[in-house]
């Protein structure tokens, strides 16, 4: 047994050594599609429509990546996942991107073997209550029963907030967001708490949306963004620069409708580098020069995506606030392509 104790770890390293490190880009090219982990149904972010195809800003982000890496936005297979399953699925290579309104936190970034490619949506946790309760502020929620989703940052923020303000609460923790909503509807809780964008989305599912009030307080920072497995820098770069391309395009005034024309005739060097007629941005990423053009043709720029799924063209009608571009008072800022 003594020998075994030393032999065994050695064999372990020798036989299985490191995790398979074949590049994700090669893997998906061989397969012909990429697998994208999405939510189990959150309107505006990722939810199946009446024909069963996934719509929302998170789903479209995966389409943009597929357009960039595989040439077509249709080469995506969507996998609905709970928060609990999401990171494990990503760690072990079952999905190639996690684009599922998950919050970028230090623990997730450093201890879960995943890398966040950037921030697609700046969110924060909020509260929804019934209007007839007469509550106007989260500070009046002492003693409330709060329905939340398990395994997200929500539970921790909630407990921090109530602890900080010396208030008591009863957490009622469900695994699926649909069950959280059903329980809130049935009156099990006074308060429904999740990311504020999620509250707007879930409120649409309630029979009388107007009877429910979203309180003004935002109690946390919830930067939501796509994540990839740690250890594949090439793939990480592609996903990250797809995100930057969407934001950068809005800043440059490149839209789904004008990109064709701009590709033909523009003298603006920044746009020429973006569409690939100048510089070698595509080659640096291991892609062709047209990579960013395909992303915009597939889903439009960030502003178009936002308005279509979350903003004024959607049922959610969320105002852009923090999600404006940096030069319009928001936080979205893409490093230059050069």
């Amino acid at each position: 047994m003594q020998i075994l104790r030393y032999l065994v770890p050695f064999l372990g390293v020798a036989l299985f050594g490191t995790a398979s490190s074949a590049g994700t880009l090669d893997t998906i090219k061989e397969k012909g599609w990429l697998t994208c982990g999405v939510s189990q149904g959150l309107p505006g972010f990722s939810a199946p429509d009446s024909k069963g195809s996934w719509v929302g800003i998170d789903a479209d982000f995966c389409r943009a990546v597929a357009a960039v890496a595989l040439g077509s936005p249709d080469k995506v297979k969507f996998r609905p996942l709970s928060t609990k399953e999401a990171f494990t699925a990503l760690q072990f290579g079952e999905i190639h991107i996690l684009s599922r309104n998950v919050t970028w936190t230090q623990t997730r970034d450093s201890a879960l073997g995943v890398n966040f490619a950037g921030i697609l949506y700046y969110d924060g946790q909020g509260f929804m209550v019934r209007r007839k309760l007469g509550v106007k502020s989260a500070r009046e929620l002492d003693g409330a029963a709060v329905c939340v989703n398990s395994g997200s940052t929500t539970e921790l923020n909630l407990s921090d907030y109530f602890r900080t303000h010396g208030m008591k609460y009863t957490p009622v923790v469900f695994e699926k967001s649909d069950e959280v909503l059903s329980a809130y509807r049935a009156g099990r809780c006074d308060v429904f708490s999740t990311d504020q964008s999620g509250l707007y989305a879930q409120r649409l599912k309630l029979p009388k949306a107007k009877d429910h009030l979203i309180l003004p307080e935002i109690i946390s920072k919830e930067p939501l963004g796509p994540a990839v497995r740690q250890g594949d820098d090439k793939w990480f770069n592609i996903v990250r620069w797809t995100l930057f391309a969407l934001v950068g395009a809005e800043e440059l005034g490149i839209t789904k409708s004008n990109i064709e024309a701009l590709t033909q005739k523009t003298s603006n060097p920044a746009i020429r580098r973006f569409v690939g007629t100048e510089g070698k941005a595509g080659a640096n990423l291991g892609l062709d020069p047209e990579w960013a053009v395909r992303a915009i043709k597939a889903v439009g720029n960030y502003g178009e995506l936002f308005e279509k799924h979350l903003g004024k063209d959607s049922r959610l009608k969320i105002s852009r606030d923090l999600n404006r571009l940096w030069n319009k008072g928001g936080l979205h800022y893409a490093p230059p392509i050069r």
Partner: protein
Amino acid sequence: MVAVAVVIAGAVWLFGNTLDNLANRGIASGFSFLKSTAGFGISTSLIDFSEASSIGRAFWVGLLNTLLVSAISVVLATILGFAIGIARFSKNWLLGRVATVYVETLRNIPLLLQIFFWYFAVLRALPGPRQSYDLAGWFFLNNRGFYIPKLEIIDGGGWVLLGAVVMAFLAFWQCRHKGISRSCAGLAVLLFISLLAVGSVSVPALTGFNFTGGTVLSPELVALVIALSSYTAAFIAEIVRAGVQSVPRGQIEAADALSLPDKDRMRFVVIPQALRVIVPLLTNQYLNLTKNSSLAAAIAFPDLVSVFAGTVLNITGQAIEIIGITMAVYLTISLTIAFSMNIFNRTTAMRGLSS
């Protein structure tokens, strides 16, 4: 010996390889997370728990909740299952049919659906806290749960109370054997006084959103107990029926020949023999029930799976350790149940037939 060594070596090798692979993928491993601060709240807890408690303590909260719900459900399922199993032999046509319909309906609908049914049926039928059903100003029923008064005991009062309970037990024993006597009444008075000395009753009262004071049976707990016990009772009823039918007809005829009344025939002749068949099968049902209690996560009851393999897993992301611990715990619970049922089985088995 060689086979054992190979299996052990294989297990050790897998373990080492897993750790290496985790390290290579940059995923944290180890059990140190159990000591870190939980930072989340739990609605139902049998022991003191707050956000500042450790994750290890959250594990115990979840485990105790699992044991609580399993223990209550096992008792209820057994009582209900025996009643329905025996009702199927009833000469009353209606009672027999109702029992048959019960068994066929409940055991043929997936348990998860039944849990949802009870949870949302219970929730929707009940009013909000401000319109609660009020029973004598002491008990309140609403969609947040069933609020009952709680006996609060001062520090160190537990021992006094324990002594009092022992004395009360003696008192009742005395009363049963000798009728009301002076010593019996004296002990009862003593118990009452000691209760007054160490305890006070906290009655639930409506403040703000909800009731405070007293204690609450949450709708999650109630729905889960109803669903688990009524579902398992259907299976137990069938086992009881099988057990009773396994008793040879001659035994019943012999009991009739002795002109034993119906009740005694069941109690002294049929049931003891039926138990030989029933007990080993009952063990399976108890095991199933305990394992099924993990469906609690679906309706927000904070059991082991919901708290530990749910919230804690999400916070720490250490899936392998947490799922490993959770599986080991269920295995331990199941083996313990099987072990104690085997001991019980030995007492009911026919002498000479069991080894």
